[in-house]
């Protein structure tokens, strides 16, 4: 089958998904405000909007997989563009976390008289950083190692063995391993949230703690879902030894989440807890 295009770029076919996504964003924002101000059906509209956004993600990225793996539109320069795009997206997320860290350091470096001029504020029972938080650090680091392990397996082309291994044994050391491990992180963090002696409304400490760790936890879940999709695609044989950018993007995202956690652990849990 010969391709008639003379250029290596991918001119995408018209698609309804951007419109659907923006309608979903509109519904989410209006519904969210309605819900927070106790207007009738606000929660319904918010749920509808979030559902539309999730559906948009599903169909849009499904189309990307079709265009790349099944139709072969992703030439080298297209892949290069996607690499730049993913890197820039991760940089934008780093900026977002920078804002939360700024907020934390603003309040913790010069604690006001209202909280006792100390950090952690008077009356706050901080979590022991060397308990669950340290365990979570080890979990994320080993998950990062597992992702690198999976990458080398893809590069080495041992996918057929891995397919049989996945079907037969479900060992944690195969491609599913790393998202099982990160699920443990989410589970432990959830337990910490429930058991913590302070809440998000407990002054500036609670606000900065739960905002920063909460957004981080949300990003861990996103990374886990991304890796599950990659595991499914690997099982279906989408990735080749030389072309598996979807997996690399998931691995980059995983490592970024890990680095953010390390900063969180050192600044908020360890330094902020003394």
């Amino acid at each position, binding site marked *: 089958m010969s391709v*008639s295009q003379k250029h290596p770029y991918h001119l995408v076919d018209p698609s309804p998904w951007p419109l*659907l996504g923006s309608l979903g964003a509109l519904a989410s924002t209006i519904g969210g405000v309605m819900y927070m101000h106790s207007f009738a059906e606000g929660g319904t509209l918010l749920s509808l909007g979030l559902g539309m956004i999730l559906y948009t993600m599903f*169909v849009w990225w499904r189309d990307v997989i079709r*265009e790349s*793996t099944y139709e072969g*539109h992703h030439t080298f320069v297209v892949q290069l563009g996607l690499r730049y795009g993913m890197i820039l997206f991760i940089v934008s997320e780093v900026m977002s976390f920078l804002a939360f860290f700024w907020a934390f350091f603003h309040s913790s470096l010069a604690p006001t008289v209202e909280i006792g001029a100390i950090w952690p504020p008077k009356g706050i029972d901080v979590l022991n950083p060397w308990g669950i938080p340290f365990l979570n650090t080890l979990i994320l680091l080993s998950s990062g190692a597992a992702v690198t392990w999976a990458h080398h397996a893809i590069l080495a082309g041992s996918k057929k063995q891995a397919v049989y291994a996945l079907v037969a044994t479900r060992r944690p050391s195969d491609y599913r391993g790393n998202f099982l491990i990160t699920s443990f992180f989410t589970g432990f963090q959830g337990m910490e949230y429930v058991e913590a002696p302070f809440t998000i409304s407990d002054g500036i400490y609670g606000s900065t703690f739960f905002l920063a760790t909460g957004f981080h936890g949300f990003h861990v879940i996103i990374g886990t879902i991304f890796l599950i999709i990659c595991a499914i695609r690997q099982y279906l044989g989408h990735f*080749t030894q030389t*072309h598996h950018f979807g997996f690399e993007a998931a691995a980059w995202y995983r490592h970024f989440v890990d680095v953010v956690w390390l900063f969180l652990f050192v600044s908020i849990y360890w330094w902020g807890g003394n």
Partner: protein
Amino acid sequence: MWRGTAAARLLLRACASSPVLQQHTQQLLPPLQSACRPAILLPVTRWIQTKAALRSHGGGQLDEFGIATGAEREELEAKREGKKRFDLDPPRGPFGTHDAPAIVESHYDVRIVGCSGGVGEDEHDVTWFHLEKGKPYECPVCSQVFQLKVTGVGGQPGHDEHH
């Protein structure tokens, strides 16, 4: 619903144009072409079909490029032969004169060309112009002569592609 039909059309077009799925739809799940299924089932059906396709391949029957197809495969195959399927580099060659003009290949009868002069000190800011078939053009800055060589369908640009 619109979502359903758009998804079905995209899936059908993807099935029709993908060589991997085409040969397997015929062998394994012909009803997929009928698009009678509700949209929400289409991705699941495609997934099951792909799994079956990979299993029936039995491993070892794919060539060195695996499941690569379309433009990506053409790029890989050309690279294996040492050629470039999509050459984005600016063309280089001896300085064009009236006796031996610089030849610029073109798919159509006219192409936008930029001349940056000779090497070293003879280089100048890129001067852009339209180069037409049968009309050799002289760069107004350095007098380099260009000639168009139509290697494609010819005609005016933009009328023979489906985009």
